[in-house]
């Protein structure tokens, strides 16, 4: 009787300890989930999802504070991949967050009109614009993610989006 009792108590204690240890590491689990979500996002860093970048959006998704349909650059493919990963119902991108671009585009600066104000350089989330104060700026097309964040700050409206070269 006694050995059986001790075994049961011991097993229960071990299981409880394991559960307690597992519960103490939610941060590591959440970190891993954020990484997995971040890997599915297009890294445009455009902020159209209302968060300040792809990783903050991934963190919000992991916490359950955001929906999977908030990434227009990723399009329906990204929404579907997120739904699969997070076990949620698939749904198309919500047009309130922006239109899904028909083809990838990159920013282009009309260099004859650029006044060298560096406002676009400050806005670029991936440091893809080179230039200096009162010198002409230009976009490194290969590094541009097409986030369009440089367009509103430009005081002379010399930045346009052009289709990306394959």
């Amino acid at each position, binding site marked *: 009787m006694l050995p059986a009792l001790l075994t049961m108590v011991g097993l229960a204690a071990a299981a409880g300890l394991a559960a307690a240890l597992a519960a103490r590491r939610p941060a590591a689990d959440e970190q891993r989930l954020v990484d997995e979500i971040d890997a599915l996002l297009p*890294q445009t860093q455009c902020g159209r999802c209302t968060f300040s970048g792809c990783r903050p959006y991934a963190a919000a998704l992991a916490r359950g504070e955001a929906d999977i349909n908030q990434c227009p650059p990723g399009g329906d493919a990204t929404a579907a991949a997120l739904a699969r990963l997070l076990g949620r119902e698939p749904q198309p991108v919500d047009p309130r967050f922006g239109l899904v671009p028909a083809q990838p585009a990159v920013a282009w600066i009309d260099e004859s009109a650029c006044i060298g104000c560096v406002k676009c350089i400050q806005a670029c989330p991936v440091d893809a614009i080179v230039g200096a104060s009162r010198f002409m700026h230009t976009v490194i097309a290969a590094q541009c993610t097409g986030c369009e964040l440089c367009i509103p700050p430009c005081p002379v409206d010399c930045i346009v989006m052009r289709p990306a070269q394959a």
Partner: protein
Amino acid sequence: MATSRVRGGLRLNAHKERSTEHALRPATAVESLVLPLDQHAGAPAVPLVKRGDRVLRGQPLAGPGGAISAWLHSPVSGTISAIEPRPAPHRLGAPALSIVVSNDGRDERHAAPSPTGFEQMAPEQLRDAIDRGGIVGLGGAVFPTAAKLRSAAAATSLRLLLNGAECEPYISCDDMLMRERARDIVFGARVLLHALAAQSCVIAIEDDTVQAAASLEAALSEAHDERIRLRRVASIYPAGGEKQLITTIFGVEVPHDGLPANVGVACLNVGTAAAVAQWIRDAQPLTRRIVTVTGDGVREQRNLEVPLGTSLGALIYDCGGYTGRMARLIMGGSMMGQALPHDDMPVIKATNCVIAASAVDLQPRGPEMPCIRCGNCSVACPAMLLPQQLHWYAQARDLAALETHGLMDCIECGCCDYVCPSQIPLVERFRDMKPALAAQLAARTAADAARARFDARTGRLERIESERSAVLARKRQELAKKSS
């Protein structure tokens, strides 16, 4: 000498004897030569001449248009009659910007700088010299040789592999080259060894090329260079595939996302080595190559040394013209060659073989039937893939599964097609799916780069902000001390 063999593959009827009966001869001169500017891998060349210019044989017509690009020289003396888009065989008849030279028949040679001994040059210098010869890989990939040498030279304890295993049926231009120009190949091997600072060289040939082996052995014993050895591999298609040959010869596998240089090997075609020899020793840039003209649809099946830019039609005419049984014109071998819509296209640096195929040459293909999961294709696959699974996922357009099953490692050799009892055009399916998967992989690489840049920027902004607030706090403290 032990013979090694490739994994998988097929023993095919080589159909080579018919084109190796006759000795090599130069092709008859033509009046107009068309030289596409993008006939090599990498960036198209940029013209250095304009319409109406008089050019001499061996004069540079176009210079490299990027880091990976090649020079283009005039094969004849004459005048530039046009620089315009012309149908190009590497684009299957779609136009490519080309320089058209009209031949004046005088064959005046451009005064090239007199060659100096290559042993006196530093390896970097020698690589630059090879670059100016317009030399590209003549095995079919037409990758600029200098760019390959530059990237491979960074590897340590490098071995040179000269690929003379011409495994694809019908093609015999390398066989003919090894028979008749073995000295050029050995000289080229010595130049390449110096350019790569490599220690040893293996020339790999198939065990059924007896004459080529004999003449290479004679050239080797004449050269007295113990760094260069001859190795025979079993004559199985595709023994001469680059990755397959490296595994067969050295017993190492090239990583699927890597280059031969990653395992300390630089692999070049024997034709490339001969072209290097002709440029470094004789100052003859790459303006002509050996082309096999074969198939039941042409009267005289043989190998010719052809100036680049000669039209395929003129080449066929040079070989006695088409027979009545001619059915399809193919550039390349019978397994990987591409059918061309017409013959008004030039010979380019990549043209190793032209098959005028009749019904006898073409493997009859019945209608496609469903896959019966027999697994013959995975036994034949030399890249150790599972074509039956790839077929499955290609039908479903499942890019993630295609990636994990190694679609990008498919060398499109056609062995799976050949053995498939259901006559499924497997390689065609795989070729269709590759661009989509490549685009997805490129997007992922771009996303990773964007993430790294975003993280770097975020980190920088945070650091600047914390430094600024630290300075601010210190100044406040100093101010408070002063006023108290």
